[in-house]
């Protein structure tokens, strides 16, 4: 189950998680305030309000942007300027705890052993990819890169994209037995390699999740691909 899925599942039994769920999902339908639009409470609205009413919108925006940058470093981790070493952020901890198979994809200490375990139990990785796609609903856009980078930088993901991109061209690959050749994805086939890897670090995380959502539609095929061709 995904991280956020577990939190909300726990809410069914009450306790602190129930309080969190209510706080996050907001008041019930009975509360009239829930439907009331409130421009001043949005991050853009308040700067406009401050600019119009008291003329300090630019300074307020600067404070907002600085705080946003600090929070991204807390979420995604930061590099030590002295030795260039990257320190894990909040998301690294979530990955290690709730997505162990995904975390192992980037395991540089024992890569062959990690890949072997994934190939033996491909459904673990597939379920975690499923959970990850669901969890992104609650992650703001400016933080999505921290979620996709650990996946995009791995060889396994590159092989997955390459494999699905080949489509019918894969039928010509001599070392793949006929029974295992994967058909083209049809109207959803796009040049994912170019979209995701062609732009270097400037790829759009939404392209990564679009690709994952498409390949997760057919989990049986994905299981074959992970267990045999990664």
């Amino acid at each position, binding site marked *: 189950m995904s991280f956020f899925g577990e939190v909300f599942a726990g809410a069914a039994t009450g306790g602190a998680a129930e309080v969190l769920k209510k706080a996050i999902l907001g008041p019930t339908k009975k509360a009239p305030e829930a439907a009331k639009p409130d421009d001043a409470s949005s991050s853009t609205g308040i700067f406009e309000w401050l600019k119009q009413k*008291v003329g300090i919108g630019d300074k307020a925006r600067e404070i907002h942007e600085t*705080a946003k940058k600090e929070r991204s470093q*807390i979420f995604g981790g930061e590099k030590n300027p002295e030795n260039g070493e990257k320190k894990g952020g909040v998301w690294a901890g979530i990955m290690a705890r709730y997505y162990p198979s995904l975390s192992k994809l980037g395991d540089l200490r024992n890569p062959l052993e990690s890949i072997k375990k994934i190939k033996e139990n491909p459904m673990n990785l597939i379920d975690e990819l499923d959970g990850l796609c669901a969890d992104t609903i609650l992650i703001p856009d400016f933080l999505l890169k921290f979620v996709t980078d650990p996946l995009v930088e791995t060889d396994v993901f590159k092989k997955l994209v390459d494999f699905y991109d080949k489509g019918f061209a894969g039928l010509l690959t001599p070392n793949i037995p006929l029974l295992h050749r994967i058909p083209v994805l049809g109207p959803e086939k796009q040049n994912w390699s170019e979209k995701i890897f062609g732009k270097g670090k400037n790829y759009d995380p939404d392209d990564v999740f679009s690709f994952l959502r498409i390949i997760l539609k057919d989990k049986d095929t994905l299981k074959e691909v992970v267990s045999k061709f990664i």
Partner: protein
Amino acid sequence: MAVDQKLIREIVNYLQLSTMESKEKAMWMLLLPQMDEEKLLKLKASLEKEVNGITDLYLQALNPQQQNA
């Protein structure tokens, strides 16, 4: 919760006052129980700085208005 509840309470209060979008607030509310003390303290420091900064601006802007009143 092993982490100081007082720290969590302060962060929750600052979250409500922050200018971040509601989606991000919801995300941090869910992540708080999973965070270690070091990261909670960093988050609290960042939120405190932001909220105090916005409040200072408001008070600065208020002063000329009070003088003209």
